[in-house]
């Protein structure tokens, strides 16, 4: 373990208020359920932590658990997107439970490790699963993580890019360790979110 050294400073509040208001999403404030899938050890948890911590805002209600995290991202067009990120357990024995988690998700990030061909196979399995059982308009991103380990690379970015293109996915290589491309990943997803059409 160790994609990071320290914790967000103030998150002692306990699990979010059960009465927490599901503040209505309007055309300027969007909300997105995002699920993370991928083999165990590819860096899913680290990617989220890096994203949430990197923009840590002491006023935002960061919750105790690291398996459900939310983060608001402000875009240039002055919309904000509140990501509600659902981490899943990557071990094989939990694979059958995944549909419970991706049901109703607006976006999915499928992660593999660029140093492991096997993890790309697993990612492709998840992509197929999502295509079969996920919602039609789900935004899907393929993420090759651990890009900092390029000397150990076994998956070429070109192959991954081609696979992503064939499957209508957005592709990026990230490093949770160096924070490379982490924000870009989430910004790109936010940009692809369908904007609710204002009532005419």
């Amino acid at each position, binding site marked *: 373990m160790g994609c990071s050294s320290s914790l967000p400073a103030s998150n002692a509040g306990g699990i979010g208020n059960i009465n927490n208001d599901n503040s209505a999403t309007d055309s300027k404030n969007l909300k997105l359920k995002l699920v993370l899938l991928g083999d165990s050890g590819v860096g899913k948890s680290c990617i989220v932590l890096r994203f949430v911590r990197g923009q840590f805002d002491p006023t935002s209600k960061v919750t105790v658990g*690291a398996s459900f995290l939310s983060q608001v991202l402000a875009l240039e067009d002055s919309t904000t997107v509140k990501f509600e990120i659902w981490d899943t*357990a990557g*071990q094989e024995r939990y694979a059958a*439970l995944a549909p419970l988690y991706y049901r109703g998700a607006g976006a999915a990030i499928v992660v593999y490790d660029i140093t492991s061909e096997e993890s790309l196979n697993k990612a492709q399995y998840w992509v197929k699963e999502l295509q079969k059982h996920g919602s039609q308009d789900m935004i899907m991103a393929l993420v090759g993580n651990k890009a900092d380990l390029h000397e150990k690379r076994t998956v070429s970015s070109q192959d991954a890019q081609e696979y992503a293109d064939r499957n209508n996915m957005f592709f990026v290589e990230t490093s949770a360790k160096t924070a490379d491309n982490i924000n870009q990943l989430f910004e790109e997803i936010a940009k692809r979110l369908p904007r609710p059409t204002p009532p005419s």
Partner: protein
Amino acid sequence: MESPSLAASRVDFYGFLDRMRRPAAAGLFRSIKSFLASLSLDAEEDGARVQAFYAAMEAAFREHPLWANATHQEIDHALEGLEKYVMTKLFDRTFAASPEDAAADAEVSERIGLLQRFVRPQHLDIPKVLHNEASWLLAVKELQKINSFKSPRDKLLCVMSCCQVINNLLLNVSMSNDRTPSGADEFLPILIYITIKANPPHLHSNLKFVQLFRRETKLVSEVEYYLTNLISAKMFIVNVDGRSLSMEENEFQMHMETAKLGTQICAASLSSPQGSATSTRGLQKQTDTQGSRFPFMDSETESLTAAELKQLHGLYRQVVTRYASLSKALRKLFIDEDQLLASVDDDSSTDVKMLARDGIG
């Protein structure tokens, strides 16, 4: 001890009842009464109708003079009160009301009862640093409370408190060990383990009840995430096999058999002497039929080929492993193994029961 949120939920409730008693609320109260009387007896359908009713009442509250100038939060409190009132009234008709639900509850609870006897944290790869009996016990207690409440919100609060205990543990460990705060991969196995330890009564029905009758607008975000984790823990448990517990399938089967045996002995020793005698006879029959599965019993040692010896060695290993875990299980039940064996020898099954009863009592 009552958690602050549960106390708050009470305040909401009494406030709601208070308002409903006012003459001005007579009309609203009539709609609630007539809604309660109108429900069918089909959980799924009722779920949809109750949700529609919550929504209709929300609109009615907003327009009602009693809530004139009320804040969003005040309306929300009234709706919490409404949910609790309606679901407490409907509880007996909607909770574990169908034979299928009752059967599912029994099945889950029986399965957990068996798993409890042998599943250890390491079977779920829960790292040693996260072993914390005190926290785990607290989480177990929180989860078990789920069955002591009738309103969906209060039940959900029990799930949330249980998950919060686990998250606090994960947070403390990651802070004191300077570890990455762990994600789902450490949370879920602990929740599964806690669920096995807790064996919360009517787990299936409690989950279904919350999903159907908790106000939809509140089953979102974090609350939805943690509820989903408990649902997925239940699903894991229902489908559990050797692979999912990091063991060989035959080892898993053996554990389950041993656990069943333990349960039988336990149950038998608690029931009447007559009842127990029959169950032991059943047990012996099993032993007999298993006997025929072991070849070479009548073979001459000299006539065995090398291949047969190899096979025999495999069988021997199996027997020893089985015997070892069986006697471990028996020791847990404080039953004297030699006496048990002796009593099986002289074919008097009632003796076994007597011993078992003495041993346990």
